[in-house]
């Protein structure tokens, strides 16, 4: 059993592991940002700081044979679903040891062993693909589900509309999760979208829909469990709008100067790590000492990972000619 599968099953009913994974994602993104700033990562990055509860919540509910179609803002989901920090960072740094051999980059993480479909850098690109995976499950009479995760801005693309309609009419086992982190690039979602609650758009397809607090992993799990149960038992798709917040800028060096003053601070009060931590402490599952230790272990772990990745080999010129068609496999 490979590393990703183990990492995935580690989340099974293990609340402390959820918190641990969220810590890992937080630290991963923090270091990714620094590596980008220092020029060690080229291209672009899209961080998910503030959105960790949703990522881990999803991963903790789904089975490893379920699949997820996510986006360029996919580091957190990929780590949550099981991809190792090493494999993810190596990909982001263009190393041969990355999940796509260093040929994909930050926007394209993938791991078939835990159902991470190659994340798409095209808005709306992953939604029909998730529906298609669900179609396969339906025909194959499997109880697997497919999940599409996308942003608030993505609810304005044609593929969103077409896919929800198709999924509804075919009652596909797919769950649409709109990670409404308030911004699409540099635009607050209300600049581009005339309604406040995006989940209501599912009414256009007679599809069950709801909004949830995406900062609280327990809420995420409850909502998702219900949707997954419905999907697995032939009840068709659901649209869940998770209200989250993008603590960082959109990508690269964006510092989000367009944010109204105080907005970030307001949301930081509900930082998903804080929220989870409070739950766990209240439940007696964690102490502040334990947490401090976990944090420093995570920091060390990510530092060690970075070190390893920096020493990893680059793909060779030959590698970039592989895996284009079946014939070019090796």
């Amino acid at each position: 059993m490979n590393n990703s599968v183990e990492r995935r099953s580690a989340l099974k009913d293990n609340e402390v592991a959820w918190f641990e994974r969220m810590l890992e994602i937080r630290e991963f993104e923090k270091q990714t940002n620094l590596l980008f700033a220092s020029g060690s990562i080229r291209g672009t990055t899209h961080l998910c700081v503030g959105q960790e509860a949703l990522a881990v919540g999803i991963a903790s509910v789904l089975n490893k044979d379920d699949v997820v179609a996510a986006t360029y803002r996919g580091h957190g989901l990929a780590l949550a679903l099981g991809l190792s920090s090493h494999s993810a960072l190596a990909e982001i740094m263009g190393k041969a040891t990355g999940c796509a051999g260093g040929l994909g980059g930050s926007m394209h993480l993938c791991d078939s062993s835990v159902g991470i479909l190659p994340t798409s850098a095209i808005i709306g690109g992953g939604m029909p693909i998730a529906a298609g995976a669900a179609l396969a499950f339906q025909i194959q009479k499997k109880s697997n589900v497919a999940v599409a995760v996308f942003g608030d801005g993505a609810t304005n693309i044609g593929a969103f509309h077409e896919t929800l309609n198709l999924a509804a009419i075919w009652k596909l086992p797919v769950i649409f999760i709109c990670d409404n982190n308030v911004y699409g690039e540099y635009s607050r979602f209300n600049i581009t979208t005339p309604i406040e609650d995006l989940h209501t758009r599912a009414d256009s397809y007679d599809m069950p829909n709801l909004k949830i607090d995406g900062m609280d992993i327990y809420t995420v799990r409850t909502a998702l469990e219900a949707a997954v149960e419905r999907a697995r038992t032939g009840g068709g798709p659901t649209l869940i709008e998770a209200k989250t917040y993008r603590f960082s800028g959109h990508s690269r060096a964006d510092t989000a100067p367009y944010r109204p003053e105080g907005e970030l601070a307001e949301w930081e009060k509900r930082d998903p790590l804080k929220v989870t931590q409070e739950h766990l402490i209240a439940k007696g599952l964690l102490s502040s000492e334990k947490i401090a230790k976990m944090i420093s272990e995570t920091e060390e772990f990510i530092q060690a990972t970075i070190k390893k990745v920096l020493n990893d080999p680059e793909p060779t010129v030959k590698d970039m000619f592989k895996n284009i068609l079946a014939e070019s496999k090796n």
Partner: protein
Amino acid sequence: MPALRFRQAIVAALTDEMSADPTVITFGEDIAAAEGVFKATEGLLATFGPERVRDTPISEMAFTGAAVGAAMMGMKPVVEIMFIEFLGVALDQLVTEAAKMRYLSQGQYSVPMVVRASSGSGLGFGCQHSQTLENWVAATPGLKVVTPSDPQSAYSLLRASIADPDPVVFLEPRILYAERGEVDFNLKMKLGQARVLTTGSDLTIVALGNMVNVSKAAIAQSGVSADLIDLGTIVPWDRETVLNSVRKSKRLIVVEEAPLSGGWGSEIIATVTRELFSSLVSAPFRITTPDIPVPFNGSLEAKFAPNAADVCRQILESMKNNSVPDAWWVSEGVAK
């Protein structure tokens, strides 16, 4: 061997692949209950049932993308895009998603899907329903692009396309749907392998789809001794067969239903020129449509795509003095 209509050969290929392989499914607009606007999916719903044969909403992006996702999960979806123009609302899923999946997953996922789309002029459907548009998909590493020219190649190439482990765009010249021809169900054809339909010494003609039939008639009319190569697959095209033929004939004409500017034929010309420049006795050239939208009017549309008479004229003129004849619109003085 039975004589089937082109559309029936499509049905037969789908039927045989679906019978042989339970993972083959098909969907598209009005392809199930109504059996397709071109009746190219006749009987499939009755034979294979509503789980595997489905009508879709008018949502090309969603259902093309659904084929990508289903293919990644082990199915072999065949989707019908009724007119290739409709890929204009769905191209992203084909070029930017399907074609990249194997690469982006380094072989963890593959996308064995087929997009069937009718293409081309000749039926009076006007300029938004008569284009060929191979150029939308032809420069896409990761995709294959196929066009049959008769019922036999429709049957054999569609089977090969469905069996192929990568995404294939299968373009059906809609002018051919009603045409009949004998079909040997045991004849296998490989993608990327051209057919040499007539052999001769003086000239190589490379054509695709209905232009194969036009070229065949033109060769007969002209009396020249020519290799007629039915490319069958545009991407990847059969360089060996074409180069071998031109090595022998030393002359090349590509007959193409696509605009003069930007069509796929220039790819053949550029490659042959590169490889065989010094052995060519005259300039290889293309016979194409003019750079105009497809006109509706019947006599004009008949003139729009290369026809046998004009291809024959150009063959004879080019053979006479090893020169490149003018396109008809130049020789007739109607356009530059």
